[in-house]
């Protein structure tokens, strides 16, 4: 079975950082996908059905909350594990993340090792 991880962030550096962090999973056969905005992310999730999504919150066109809500509620894709990444560390945002159905909420700047660990746990690798 194909295992896919989608990385969504409008910042190319962050996408690169996460990609490089997950490089060893890629070596194990996990397909790493990227998207640079919310709409693109939604299209990719629909077509590729990734197992795990790292989703930035503050993005142009469609923010991470909306993407997450659409995936979890409108599309009914509850199996997609979504990790929200945000630079906003405020209580209000954590609550919002819970509301839209995100599985985990991580605050930037994150520890790459933590990201890798979460991925392994979620994917069972």
């Amino acid at each position, binding site marked *: 079975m194909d295992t896919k991880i989608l990385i969504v962030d409008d910042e190319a550096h962050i996408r690169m950082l996460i990609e490089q*962090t997950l490089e060893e999973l890629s070596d194990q056969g996990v397909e790493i996908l990227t998207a640079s905005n919310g709409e693109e992310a939604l299209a990719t999730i629909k077509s590729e059905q990734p197992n795990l999504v790292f989703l930035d919150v503050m993005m142009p066109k469609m923010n991470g909350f909306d993407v997450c809500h659409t995936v979890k509620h409108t599309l009914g894709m509850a199996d997609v594990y979504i990790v929200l990444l945000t*630079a906003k*560390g*405020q209580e209000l945002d954590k609550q919002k993340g819970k509301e839209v159905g995100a599985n985990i909420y991580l605050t*930037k*700047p*994150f520890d*790459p090792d933590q990201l890798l660990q979460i991925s392994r746990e979620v994917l069972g690798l």
Partner: protein
Amino acid sequence: MHWQYSPYIIPQLISTLISASVAVIAWRRRVVPGASALAVIMLGISQWSLATTLQWASADFGAQLFWFKFRFFGTELLSLMYLVMALQYTGRSQFLTRRNLALLLVMSLLSLSALWTNDAHHLFFSSAQLVQSGSFAALDVELGPWFWLHTAYDYLLLTSALLIFLRALLRSPQFYRAQLAAIMLSAVMPLSANILFVSNLSPFPYLDLTPLSFTLTGITYLLGFFRLHMWDITPAARDSVIENMSDGIIVVNDQQRIVDLNPAAARILGKPSKAIIAQPLVAVMPQWSQLNDMDTLGQTDLTLPAPDGTPRDYALRMSRVTDQHNRLTGRVLMLQDVTASKQSEAKLRLSQARFEDMAANITDSYYEADLTGVVTFANAAFCRALERAQSELEGHHFRHVVDRQDARHIIDAFSRVYQTGQPVKGLEYQFVRRDKTKRFADMSISLMRDGAGQPIGFRGVVRDVSERKQVEAELRQARTDAEAASQAKGAFLATVSHELRTPLTSVIGFAKLIQKRLDDVIFPAITSDAPKTQRAVRQVRENVDIIVKEGERLTTLINDVLDLSKIESGKMDWKLLPVSVPEVIERAIAATASLFTHKQLPIIRAVDDALPSTVATVIA
């Protein structure tokens, strides 16, 4: 015993019955002065008539003589009781002491004794015998000296009573005159009949018309009861009103001399009645000489000293007394003590003056309105506030006084106050001054009630609150501005922190990846043992460590800035708990120890053992 018929029997019997009826009627009214005496009189007459009837009906001498004697029991009472009645009826009961009554009774008792012991002395009648008069036997009595004494005494009593009645009749108003005339007539008729009989001038031989004339007496009283309200109201009651009233009454003749006064007047003038009567009015009331226009005015106010010297106020009313030719025969003065009402009037006037002064001088507007909403009073401040003259407000409805929109509020409030009885406060409305400036007013409304508690209108105070309103608006604006500024600052800080975090994520993240790659891949690949190479490896590792550490320090700083902005915007959750200050210091030192070590600075710690704990929120 033998009976006979005589033509006098029937009328005599009628007289008996009428007298008995009058006695019963009079007895029922015995609470009225004189009525009980009348009842006794009529009972006496009834007895006399009955005895006479039986005398006529008896055929033999013994029986006739017995009834002749028997009738004197009633006779003896009549004149005496008539005098008693006269005294009671005219309000002179004070003469009717037990002693006086006993003295008056002595003569009657002596007469009765003389009559019943006549056989022994023949003083009352010298002889008695039956004579045939027509178809019946009549008693012929030769009267003795005691009878004449008895008769003279009776006439004396009757005449005294009649004079008393006559005097009352002349002094009484029309209403009582008919009553008094009837009472006098009731006595004059039998008296005349009796005089005819005892003087032997009677046209009917042996017939004493006196008892028969009592029929007329009885009829007179019956008419009196039913037509003249006799014994419903008597002059005695009327006199006692004058005697006991608290207002003073003084009667003066045309020479301004006092001819009569009641006890209240004597008290007011401070002298006994005897010392006042017949005195000129000016002698006892010197103020009278100054009251020239009393005849035209009829009344005036007068101050007279009370017996203790304190002045008392009186309302003096004067009525002229004229005869039938409209000539002045005297004056009646009535003095009513009005000191108390004068005093309360003065208090009332003072209180009114106070109210008027206050209403005129307060800076707040004061109004009164009737139940329909028409302004009935507007003080100077209200006129100034509305820029109208008092005449432009008073008599005008509130809806013409304020703007239409506000008038509705006010009139609604009026009806609310009327329905609930509860005052309304803080009713706000706007009005526009002549210079087009908009002003705000704060109005209170309460219900005005009359003495009986009935609502009669509304009153209240109106305050110009424009300045206060303006200050309030400015305060509100300032607060809004401050809140907006605070929000802008919060939003700015959140944005700044976000913008800082994104590059920091890259810096820290990549530095950590570099560390990993170096340790996992690059350093193991370096095989050179050259000291220079080894030093470079060590330095690269240390430098990347510094990048990571400084990045993390920067993250902490950003978080602290965010916390500060949270505190300022009040979004911080305060959890106030007891906190040990030494512990806080301990933690602070632990957190910064590496910095001191790095800079090779010594940490000096000095904490008093007695430092108390405090209540605070610890931000981790």
